[in-house]
């Protein structure tokens, strides 16, 4: 069966980095004036060259791509056949609109994978159209790459593509992160969780017996996590349970039969939803009403942050109210594999120091199953 890849390159991705612009969105001309050079095409070419010449894929592949710098040039230069241009860019300087238009075409062609070269900005544009309909794999080129869809480098991007085509890897959730670049240039660090896409992950292998493993889906593990938390909720009826953002927690909430905000913070008490999409003030009010509380978090983004990225509503004041010992981290083993160290950056040095002194945290990875994971605080 033919494997259909939608290839998309953001030609200007990464230009802002070397000239200190911390991103390229909206500042392309400024980047050019500062002497920035295009790097994305070479990164994409490195990945594709490796994929074709090192791994020599035997499966038949159909490449759908965009004209010129957005994809066709790289495929042609690497002597790839079986290409179809599905989007033609009409202008010299492409932007997010072109990315989105191309993705709409990819969806029409029912591609099996969107293979792109860019950064968080490009990822965000792709996600806005694709959502979780098709898996996404990124060749890193951008200045900011907090999202969980990127391979480590071009070489790894080739390897992952090869393994996915050969069914050694599977599809799992990947957080799409969004750093507000305008705020960042003013010195304000604001990363939010933009959405949950489909990424490429190692399958979780459950050991059934000596030398015998069964591949299980992420959902299998999440079912176990849900079962685990359901019991916890039953055993601790007098606790407020605060649910953090992310796909894993969203899945669990769904299994527990309550509506939650995938990108926001919700709370339940005695099996009743007492707040949705809560901000810091909402949380503090609830904590005043229900002094005993636990918060359920899962690692977010490529760097495994449990606090400080995508959940700023859990402010230092909120965390202190809840207590460090009442933080429950849940994760699929797949996620932990890609982020073996969990990170905290509350923005409050004293609070971060408490986490630093903790050194580790027990992470729930299955029904009543936890493992110890190293904890790292940013900047300490």
């Amino acid at each position, binding site marked *: 069966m033919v494997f259909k890849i939608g290839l998309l390159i953001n030609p200007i991705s990464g230009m802002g980095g070397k000239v200190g612009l911390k991103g390229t969105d909206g500042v392309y001309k400024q980047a050019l004036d500062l002497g920035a050079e295009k790097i994305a095409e070479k990164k994409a070419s490195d990945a594709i060259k490796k994929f074709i010449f090192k791994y020599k894929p035997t499966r038949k592949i159909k490449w759908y791509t965009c004209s010129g710098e957005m994809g066709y040039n790289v495929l042609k230069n690497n002597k790839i056949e079986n290409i179809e241009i599905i989007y033609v860019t009409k202008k010299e300087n492409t932007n997010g609109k072109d990315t989105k238009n191309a993705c709409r075409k990819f969806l029409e062609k029912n591609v099996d994978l969107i293979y792109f070269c860019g950064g968080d900005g490009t990822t965000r544009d792709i996600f806005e159209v694709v959502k979780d309909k098709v898996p996404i794999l990124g060749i890193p080129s951008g200045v900011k790459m907090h999202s969980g869809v990127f391979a480590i480098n071009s070489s790894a991007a080739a390897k992952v593509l090869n393994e996915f085509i050969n069914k050694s890897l599977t599809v799992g959730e990947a957080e799409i992160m969004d750093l507000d670049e305008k705020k960042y240039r003013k010195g304000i660090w604001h990363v939010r969780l933009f959405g949950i896409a489909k990424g490429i992950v190692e399958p979780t292998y459950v050991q059934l017996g000596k030398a015998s493993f069964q591949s299980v889906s992420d959902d299998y593990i999440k079912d176990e996590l849900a079962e685990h938390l359901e019991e916890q909720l039953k055993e601790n009826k007098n606790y407020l349970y605060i649910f953090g953002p992310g796909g894993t927690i969203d899945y669990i909430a769904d299994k527990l039969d309550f509506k939650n905000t995938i990108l926001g913070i919700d709370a339940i008490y005695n099996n009743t939803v007492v707040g949705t999409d809560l901000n810091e003030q909402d949380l503090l009010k609830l904590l005043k009403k229900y002094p005993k509380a636990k918060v359920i978090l899962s690692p977010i983004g490529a760097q495994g942050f449990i606090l400080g990225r995508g959940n700023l509503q859990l402010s230092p004041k909120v965390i202190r109210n809840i207590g460090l010992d009442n933080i429950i981290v849940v994760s699929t083993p797949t996620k932990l594999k890609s982020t073996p160290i969990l990170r905290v950056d509350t923005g409050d040095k004293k609070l971060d120091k408490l986490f630093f002194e903790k050194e*580790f945290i027990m992470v729930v990875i299955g029904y009543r199953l936890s493992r110890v994971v190293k904890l790292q605080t940013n900047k300490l």
Partner: protein
Amino acid sequence: MGGIEFMKEQTEFLKREYEDLKEKGHTWTIRSLLGPSEPHVNVEGKKCIMLASNNYLNLANHPKLKKAAVEAVKKYGAGAGSDWSIAGNMDVHIDLHKKIAEFKNTESAVTFQTGFAVNSGVIPQLAGKGDILISDELNHGSIIDGVRLTKADRGIYGHSDMGELEKVLKDTNKKNYRRTIVITDGVFSMDGDIAKIDEIYKLTDEFGAMLYVDDAHGEGVLGDGYGIGKEFDLEKEIDFQMGTFSKAFGSFGGMLAGSEYLTKFAFNTARTWLLSAAFPPHVAAANIAALEVVEEEPERIKKLWDNTKYFKKEIESLGFNTGHSQTPIIPAMIGDSKKAQELANKMYDEGIFALAIVFPMVGRDKARIRNQMNAGMTRKDLDQILMVYEKLGKELKLI
């Protein structure tokens, strides 16, 4: 009618899922021995040096074990006729239990059908809700299964990482568990490394936890053949000593040794004991003979270790990486699964029967050939194996 016609629509998934495993390269190639398991074997008509068996002391075809088994067959017949708990418990089984306790220097012992049955049957009975079982991440699948059958909490620590174990125990201490049990393999059978039982015991003692050790690959090998308890001088301190007769002892069956109440508790609660037939009396007789041979022939253990040290030194000097091996299990780390498989196949062609351990049994780039030493191998056998490794290692550009 052929096989396909027998497949109903409902069972169609068997073929489909098998084909899927095959496509991923996750199926087993099972070869057959035409004759006894010894250092020189007949594998489907091909004469090979055996490098893949657990028969470390070369007892599987020992005349004393065979004699004991034959005499027991003549006396007791082919089988025990019933479950242990009902009418299958024979005097030869009782003798075996006493012999094990004496051998292991414990108060008491009991046997199970297999080592797997010990772990999967006993562990679920030791802990439940309100307890915690703490496991090394590379423990044997039978331990994992046993743990999964409980409603106890479970903690995992990184392989042999005492820092992590300490952290898990510290975390556990805060939570008022009724029982805390740390469970570990004694010898890890993929890498051949030994668990740090002394350090683990120190931690369990400090935190008031119990210690369960699966000594399947340690018996007959460590502690002058008496196992890991003797190796670390902790026979009385290890609360649950589990072992098997199917490896160094050359026979069959599992065992559990410890206090009198442990064995009483085990055979009154473990479903794998209560609901299964007693293993045949001739197996019990062969097991007793095996323990006696280990006591009477210490030169076997010495020979096993001489072979181990020689082979490890020589294969490393060829340029192969043996990882963290500390026992007669000596992996030759290859890395790529396909390469490891190719090497194993070519070794077979050259008359060396070795097993490639590949992904997902081990990590993606950690495929290896698992070499298992045997007390019955001669220096000539070892040199032959090394010659093949050198030849194929160069051919496949591994060295």
